[in-house]
């Protein structure tokens, strides 16, 4: 029987061996670098005809651009599986994939610990107001114009999006004496809440001392935090975002920081990465990182392995390990 065809878009840093091993069950094709133009033209030229499953990532998105109607139309008709490296997959149009009978997987769970660790680092840094004195020390000014920070102990942490990452954030924050409340599309079963209190979106905004965004970006969550929401928050709230930049209206955040409505913020993601609103770059009341939520040897390897495992299963059994929830729900309706 003829072997399937698999396509790797982008590069693998930790699992070349495991990728090569897939040659047992599939012919391997690669598109390590290029441009959207070039990729589309190769697709239309038939270069990838016969490819059944492909590997793409949040990183490779800068090569091909978003997986939208245009690109999906150009991809070979044989394509049945898009195995995505990333827990966030807002750059893949799931509905458009479903329409074309293309199943999509992502990499949940593998990212939880690493992302939660960044959230805690940013939370501690923001609560302790670290940026000013961090920068002063580095310049030889010792503490500079130092201001006191706050202890996390007994503060109320509001988690918006209590999925895998949100839960991991909650577990860690509890160790620092924080009280946890959350808002989610639906309340979790009690035993999964681990003592966290479920509240409405509005109550979360009104009563949290620290707000952590841990929800996915989609059409309905874009700018979920804007001026109206900042106005509802406690004076001096601390805002943490390790999810996706466009969840927050960045200009509104800058205004809220200027007015001190938001006392400090910790951000790993921005609306238009790698561009950052200049109001944030100059602000010593924000702790900022350049989207390195999962940038560890261990997690990067785990993520790559999970994608490859999805790829292998798609070829051998025609299904995915971690298919995106939107598609699983859609199937259930049938």
């Amino acid at each position, binding site marked *: 029987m003829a072997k399937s065809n698999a396509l790797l878009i982008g590069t693998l840093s930790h699992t070349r061996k495991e990728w090569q091993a897939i040659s047992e069950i599939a012919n391997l094709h690669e598109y390590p670098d290029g441009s959207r133009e070039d990729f589309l033209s190769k697709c239309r030229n038939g270069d990838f005809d016969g490819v059944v499953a492909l590997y793409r990532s949040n990183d490779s998105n800068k090569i091909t651009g978003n997986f939208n109607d245009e690109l999906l139309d150009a991809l070979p008709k044989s394509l049945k599986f898009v195995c995505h490296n990333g827990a966030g997959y807002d750059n893949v149009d799931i509905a458009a994939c479903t329409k074309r009978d293309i199943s999509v997987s992502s990499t949940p769970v593998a990212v939880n*610990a*690493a992302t939660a*660790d*960044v959230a*805690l*680092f940013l939370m*501690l*840094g923001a*609560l*302790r107001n*670290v940026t000013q*004195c*961090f*920068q*002063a*020390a*580095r310049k*030889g000014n*010792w*503490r*500079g114009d*130092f201001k*006191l*920070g*706050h*202890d*996390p*102990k007994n503060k109320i942490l509001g988690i918006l999006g209590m999925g895998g990452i949100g839960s991991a954030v909650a*577990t*860690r924050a*509890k*160790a*620092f*004496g924080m009280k946890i409340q959350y808002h989610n599309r639906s309340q979790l079963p009690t035993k999964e809440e681990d003592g966290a209190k479920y509240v409405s979106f509005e109550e979360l905004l009104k009563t949290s001392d620290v707000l952590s965004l841990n929800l996915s970006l989609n059409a309905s969550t874009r700018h979920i935090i804007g001026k109206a929401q900042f106005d509802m928050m406690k004076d001096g709230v601390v805002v943490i975002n390790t999810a996706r930049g466009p969840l927050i209206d960045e200009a509104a955040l800058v205004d809220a920081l200027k007015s001190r409505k938001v006392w400090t913020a910790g951000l790993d993601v921005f609306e238009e*990465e*790698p561009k*950052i609103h200049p109001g944030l*770059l100059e602000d010593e009341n924000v*702790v*900022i*990182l*350049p*989207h*390195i939520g999962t*940038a*560890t*040897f*261990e*997690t*990067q390897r785990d993520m790559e392995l999970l994608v490859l495992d999805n790829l292998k299963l798609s070829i051998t059994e025609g299904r995915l390990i971690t298919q995106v929830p939107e598609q699983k729900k859609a199937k259930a309706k049938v």
Partner: protein
Amino acid sequence: MATKPKVLLLGKIEHAHESWKSLSNLADLVSSQAQGRAEFLEECKAGRWDGVKAIYRTFDSMEITGRFDSELVPLLPGSVEFVCHNGAGYDQVDVNACSDRKIKVSHTPGTVNDCTADVNMFLILGALRGFNPGMLSIREGNWRGHPLPPLGHDPEGKTLGIVGMGGIGRNLKKKCDAFSMKIIYHNRKRLSEELAGGAAYVSFEELLRTSDVISLNLPLNKDTRHKISTREFEMMKKGVVIVNTARGAIIDEAALVKALDSDQVASVGLDVYEDEPKIHPGLMSNPRVILVPHMGTWTAETQCAMEECNISNVRSAVQDGVLLNLVPEQVDLEK
């Protein structure tokens, strides 16, 4: 009628003003306006502080008086019985010199545990994850930097060796548990299983040899000065991460710089330095070092709690002749 004893304030009260003022029921509150050590010593010699029973001193007051050492302590008026130090670490005070004068010393343990452990955790994450290069490059407008910095490491499953399992070390252990680190510790004395929270007790050498991350949480004294130096770095795992929120002089800073340059030490997180506020240029220039300026206890809540604790020690000293938080070295003086 007996005159009220005096309480001398060296340094400032920033938060617990009410509690401080309420001491005036028990004592006359006086403070030195001396601009330097020589002036302060003159004040002492001139009898200005005669009648002072208890001294409330702050960490920052060292900038004026210098250390409470074997030159200064004998010059304190004969009336002084208590030195109440605001801070958990009291290496600024020569306890032996005080004991020789039968002066009892208190500090403020406990109040600092959470706060210091929080900065400690911030530095462990920062150093292990290698956040520093990204924190610098993003502000320079270079996003992640060119070339890209190396990937960091997850704390999960890594061995954290805590040197000094006192209040702060044990507090840190609980927090690191939430990050799924494996904790081992070395202490002058082995702790009970319960107190150690399940952390394994090891020798100092074994801690050095087997830890992926080493956190210093022990006090500075003549036995612990430069406890971490060339010989110790050579025993550590290659690529070890070092974090110090205790006292700078526990590490031989020059040896640390060499160990970083040779990649024996992969990254470092520091809140304290040998010669504060000076930071060794070899550390400043190294992007793998995450540096904060001795801010271990700098929160509104903890600064207030520390002042309250120190004031309580002063009150207890003046009212009842006992300190609430006598330094461990002087336990025998009570008898």
